[in-house]
């Protein structure tokens, strides 16, 4: 457990680990009767044949995932899904001319890690801003420090690092400290990515965001993940999950994320009472 509600686990999936690249995700099903849950890949070890995932307890299905003990197995793990990050396709000498700033929010810090690591291993300059509600909810601090040039922590209550939002930190770095970046990448809650995009736009900084939409199959078949990007409907699972932040209709994406909220509440109550009965 990284925090009381955020859990990190390594999953044995050799074929998936061998094929995984930064920016991609996978889908797990905890049990035979569970949902298919998309999770961004937080790390992968091609030799050991494992992938790392990080889950935050939100609803009934994520509770099921984090209740697993080491040695237990998911009913299903499938991936890697989605298109890898754009930079994995770029020539390395060109990449080294660029300076990246990653903006990570909450559990979104985990999928930022493999991207930063990938760039760092290739000698690309990378800074990272990590935001969390409070000090105890900061994850991946040491891991991230090891693979980036500068790590800037922000907490809402000031218990660690800068007191304030990641967007304020980004503005401070660029406007007050004169830091220059060529590319921003934001991964975190939809609302954070929306405001990170607005800030980046103000600073004239290109920004990529990774959309954690609803999904069922994750292979383009259901269309639950559709988002409006540059006025066109796109499927986040096969055409994303990463898009140019400037083009994304975040308000629609946030609304669509809440599509099954009523059903989720019901499932949660059901789940809790099932747990209650078990004890």
């Amino acid at each position, binding site marked *: 457990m990284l925090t009381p509600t955020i859990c990190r686990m390594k999953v044995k999936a050799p074929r998936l680990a061998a094929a995984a690249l930064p920016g991609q995700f996978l889908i797990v099903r905890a049990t035979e009767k569970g*949902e298919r849950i998309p999770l961004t890949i937080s790390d992968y070890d091609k030799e050991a044949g494992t992938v790392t995932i990080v889950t935050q307890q939100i609803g009934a299905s994520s509770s*099921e995932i984090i209740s697993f003990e080491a040695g237990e197995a998911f009913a*299903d793990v*499938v991936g890697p899904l989605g298109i890898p990050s754009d930079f994995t396709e770029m020539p390395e000498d060109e990449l080294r001319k660029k300076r990246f700033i990653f903006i990570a929010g909450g559990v979104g810090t985990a999928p930022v890690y493999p991207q930063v690591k990938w760039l760092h291993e290739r000698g690309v300059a990378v800074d990272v801003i990590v935001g969390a509600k409070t000090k105890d909810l900061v994850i991946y601090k040491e891991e991230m420090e090891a693979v980036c040039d500068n790590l800037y922590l922000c907490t809402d209550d000031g218990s660690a690092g800068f007191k304030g939002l990641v967007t304020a930190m980004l503005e401070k770095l660029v406007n007050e400290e004169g830091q220059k970046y060529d590319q921003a990448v934001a991964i975190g809650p939809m609302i954070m990515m929306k405001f990170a995009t607005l800030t980046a736009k103000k600073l004239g900084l290109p920004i990529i965001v990774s959309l954690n939409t609803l999904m069922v199959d994750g292979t383009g*078949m*259901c*269309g639950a993940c*559709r988002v409006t990007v540059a006025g066109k*409907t796109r499927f986040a699972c096969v055409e994303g999950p990463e898009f140019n932040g400037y083009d994304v209709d975040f308000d629609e994406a946030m609304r669509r994320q809440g599509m099954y909220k009523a059903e989720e509440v019901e499932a949660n109550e059901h789940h809790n009472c099932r747990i209650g009965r078990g004890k």
Partner: protein
Amino acid sequence: MANKIPRVPVREQDPKVRATNFEEVCYGYSIEEAQLEATRCLHCKNPRCVAACPVSVKIPNFIAQVAAGNFAAAASVIAEDSSLPAICGRVCPQETQCEGSCILGVKGEPVAIGKLERFVADWSRENGGVKPEVAPANGYKVAVIGSGPAGLACASDLAKLGYDVTIFEALHRPGGVLEYGIPEFRLPKDKVVAAEIESVKALGVKIETNVIAGRTVTIDSLLDEEGFAAVFVGSGAGLPKFMGIPGENLNGVFSANEFLTRNNLMKAFRDDYMTPIHAGKKVVVVGGGNVAMDAARTALRLGAETTIVYRRTENELPARREEVHHAKEEGIQFAMLTNPIEIIGDEKGWVKAVKCIRMELGEPDESGRRSPVAVPGSEFEIETETVIMSLGTSPNPLIAKTTAGLETTRRGCIVADENGATTRPGVFAGGDAVTGAATVILAMGAGRKAAAAIHEYIRNK
């Protein structure tokens, strides 16, 4: 050639009762009913039914065995050509294939070939099943992408020829559209689909679920690194189409694929599964194919008052007659000559109504069907909580994009000749991935042809 016996009707669940459950609609024939119906076959010298069957089941031969009470022998006759008879007996469009060419149909009712096939398959499954002959292992490995009808048919034929066949399935359960698309009330999953897949596995076919071709593995890695001598791509139809009208991304608008997948594969209709599904009190389904009927009848069973909106008339509905008939019996409303032009949302972004326009039929289009034309000024609104778009699919580009030398058509379908050979040697394809959305039996036919072509290809290598 007097044949005085009328076609034996098949028993079905009462429409009022079945509208509230997911049990199978049709009960199928009893032994007595099947034998009586089988006596109606005229045993034509040149049976047109066989020619009209995409997998050429020897129909008069199996029907003769049914009439004689030799049901196991009847099952063996079918098994020579079809690996999924209990499925085909339930979901094939017999009225346009075997039964559509039955000579009895000229003046009266054709032989109920589909119901007889279903009877034989069900009887056989309940009585130990057929054990087809499998040739000794020949040492060659063949990969099959997708465990839907095309993949299963291809894999079965290859396994019988002695190949070591592995099917790679992207989802967590095998069956493809049989599992995620066609509802339980038409095609029971555990009793029929899982059982027929078990019989394919009994031939020695291996199925690996959770493997996405183009992501987890590629066609190239299967051929070059994993030692497969050939690959068959039966990856299915792909991405759902939407209309491109305003309001389509409102909450409460779903593709039929999503709605059906949640209910069928993910079993949202069952309390013991965690899958959420949103139907509400009123549902509008847009489209007129079998998938639209399935989505509408599913919504109805989840408790919604359901209307099918289609821009042509009932005569042009592409769905099977039987499905339309069943849908009507169950109380689905049909709004024909009606086309949605906008989906209207409430202040929270949820669907509130569909704005439609009346249509009339104009001149025939390239498909030969009279094309619908909007009647100016005829806009009206249908109140609804949910809209399900059932407008067909476009091919999934993943495999074509990640496989060198695999050509696709302008519409994105994989290019393959009549035997399934693609532009890449050693790679064969068939089913919806090649033709665009079609039927289970056409996909099976394509899978069988490709199996023969793969056998030929490997023997000549």
